[in-house]
């Protein structure tokens, strides 16, 4: 008994502390476009399995912030730390390009507003999904093809469209394919830029429900940029409200929406049309 009890804590403890640490720590980040402020003085932590929505009107700095924290745009100030599954910290601002690319195709995903920015339009749907698996080291054709089939099914695209190119898909299907391509490698953190932006309302509802399911079931951490507060309410645990490049209010999603304190947030919430 005594050997067991002395052994277990030492092997268990590193695991416990790694789950108790935030996945992403953003501290005081800023990006300037020349003398113009893209966004400034933004800090937050994201924990495994948490969905954070960044909301605000166009031009408020939402996408700038998303691009900074996903390593796609250089930092002017501040620091970003990402911890991988083993608890290893990465300083995103000073990460070599190779390591950044490896993160982006294994532990991270990025869902663009326009599917054509995130898909290869001339390659089959199966190829689009398989490419990411191959980038993660998968070489067996049958395994890749089966994963392609399974993911088409999960995002509710008929299996017989596996060999068609996304150019022949509808907008909603393209967006679902982009999501499948991102999730096939089981990322831990997914960035989404207005994932429902260009879709009509009925397709939007379907996609939202799908995203909600996948996020819950896979325990994904998500940073979601949206100008649609209903989308934020449905998907997000927490919310940052941005205005003129700064975060003006932050907190639980339902708290920010139901009891907004900042004048800009109140204006935003009071502008929602009552269905």
């Amino acid at each position: 008994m005594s050997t067991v009890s002395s052994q277990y804590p030492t092997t268990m403890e590193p695991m416990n502390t790694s789950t108790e640490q935030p996945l992403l720590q953003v501290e005081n980040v800023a990006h300037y476009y020349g003398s113009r402020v893209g966004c400034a003085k933004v800090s937050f932590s994201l924990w495994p399995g948490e969905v954070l929505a960044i909301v605000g009107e166009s031009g408020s700095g939402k996408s700038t912030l998303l691009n900074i924290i996903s390593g796609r745009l250089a930092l002017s100030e501040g620091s970003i730390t990402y911890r991988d599954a083993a608890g290893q910290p990465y300083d995103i601002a000073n990460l070599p390009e190779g390591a950044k690319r490896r993160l982006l195709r294994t532990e991270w995903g990025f869902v663009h507003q326009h599917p054509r920015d995130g898909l290869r339009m001339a390659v089959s749907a199966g190829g689009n999904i398989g490419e990411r698996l191959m980038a993660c080291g998968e070489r067996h054709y049958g395994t890749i093809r089966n994963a392609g089939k399974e993911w088409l099914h999960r995002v509710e695209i008929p299996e017989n469209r596996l060999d068609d190119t996304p150019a022949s898909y509808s907008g909603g299907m393209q967006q679902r394919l982009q999501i499948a391509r991102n999730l096939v490698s089981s990322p831990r953190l997914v960035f989404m830029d207005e994932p429902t932006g260009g879709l009509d309302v009925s397709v939007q509802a379907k996609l939202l429900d799908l995203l909600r399911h996948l996020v819950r079931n896979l325990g994904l951490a998500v940073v979601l940029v949206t100008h649609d507060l209903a989308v934020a309410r449905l998907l997000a645990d927490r919310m940052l409200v941005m205005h003129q490049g700064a975060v003006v209010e932050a907190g639980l999603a339902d708290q920010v929406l139901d009891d907004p304190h900042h004048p800009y947030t109140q204006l935003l919430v009071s502008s929602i049309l009552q269905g």
Partner: protein
Amino acid sequence: MTISAVPTNTPPALAVRNLSKTFTLHTQGGVRIEAFNNLNLEAHYGKCLVLHGPSGAGKSTLLRSMYANYKPCSGSIVVQHGKEVVDIATATPREILAIRRDTIGYVSQFLRVIPRVSTLDIVAERCLSMGEDKALAEEKAVALLRRLRIPERLWRIAPATFSGGEQQRVNIARGFIRSYPVLLLDEPTASLDATNRQTVIELIQEAKANGCAVVGIFHDEAVRHAVADTLFQVQSGTTNAA
């Protein structure tokens, strides 16, 4: 109505201390509306505390503050969360999410409809989020839906098109499918007929018997009589315990 003396031997499940809340409406000329000021109350395990007062007195604001849906301006809301004691008024979003998952349940007046999700899945969700087996969660959901007289043909349909009373019963089933140490109820019987109201009364009494601390708003006097142990008068501006 029985008004019991506040038991002093057991620590309260939830305690509100010197709580104040004022809304500032920036978009409407900075008007300030005081919901309540310097309010104190305690909720105990196995008891039902009823918030009472006229419409607009701040009852719902108080209840929503206890769920961290509203942010109070000053004071504390202390809840027993597992082995810890946490102040909801100052807790981090992450702590609040854990409290909502494990400690505090909330049944609002309205069902916030999630498009495309079936009634059965909506009711079973909170069991699944605790890692419970899917078959077992569905079994519990079915039992509750049956008890609340939701016809079986509606179980596989999303509740968006249901009547007001049906939506409210789905909402109640969702809130009662698992036992929380603290349960907040905002007029759960508002649009129900007499038989269903009786079922809700039984559900509340069973929760109390299970040791749940219930805090509720009930405009219906019969319901209030049946479930209340303590009455708390909420009046805009000045407040005092009954």
